[in-house]
């Protein structure tokens, strides 16, 4: 069996600038949003704060779906939840945990309101199928 040859040895060093360009592109090119990231922007833009990014991956390591989608009353459909800061302050929705006891409190605005201004609300990070409801 012939030993496998690396791309560089096969094509030669004369393409070095090309290799470097590809490498550089890798550092600049945006990586995709993580699968299941949700952007909440019913009110944020209008209120002059960044939209909220909710990372499903981070939360499901620590809580089962049923905690938020059953106990806390979050609807399954992205966009179906009217989440207000005044409700969170009463301990509803995110406020059940984001109270400086289980997780950071509501005064840490930038940790949740961390999205680029103007982002449309919805599910991001779809993999190949782009997620449902995008047709």
């Amino acid at each position, binding site marked *: 069996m012939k030993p496998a040859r690396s791309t560089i040895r096969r094509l030669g060093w004369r393409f070095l600038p090309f290799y470097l360009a590809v490498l550089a592109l890798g550092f600049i*090119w*945006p*990586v*995709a*949003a*993580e*699968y*299941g*990231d949700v*952007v909440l922007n019913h009110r944020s833009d209008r209120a002059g704060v*960044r939209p909220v*990014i909710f*990372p*499903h*991956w*981070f939360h*499901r*390591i*620590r*809580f*089962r*779906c*049923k*905690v938020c*989608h*059953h*106990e*806390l009353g979050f609807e*399954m*459909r*992205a966009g179906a939840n009217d989440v207000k800061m005044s409700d969170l302050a009463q301990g509803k929705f995110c406020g*059940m*945990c984001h109270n400086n006891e*289980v997780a950071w409190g509501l005064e*840490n605005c*930038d*940790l949740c309101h*961390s*999205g*680029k*201004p103007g*982002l449309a609300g919805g*599910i*991001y990070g*779809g*993999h*190949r*199928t782009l*997620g*449902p*409801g995008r*047709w």
Partner: protein
Amino acid sequence: MLARDDLHDPNNLALSLLQEPAEALAVLAPAQEGNFVDWAAALRSGEISPRTNVYPETKIRVLDLDVLMTDTAAMPVVRFPHRPHTEWLDCSNCHDKIFVAKGGANPITMFKILQGDFCGQCHGAVSFPLTQCRRCHSVPRDQALRVEPQ
């Protein structure tokens, strides 16, 4: 990387305080798509132990019941296992808002699923994507037909 994901604002000074997905996910049971994590396997093996409830009085309901869906044209038959689903979710998340709790009562098609109805409300958004055909279409037809109807 959060700063380059086209979602997070790189000008947000608090961004460095957030955990990077790769740091948390790389150590979990691998999958081919989605978060590249087999979440059901990670839960089963104890790699993660997410809390089941925040209110002490909440009843934790887990059901061990498989449903075979045989009307799948040329594809292998779908086996829907309640167990891994109810380990994550409560009955009320699907019944009866998304699925009627009665065998054969739900007009499920892949067309509807791909539009985000039925299974597609989660699969393709947060749970494993719809490109992983064989994870649901998992039972060869001749094997499925050997199962005695109850």
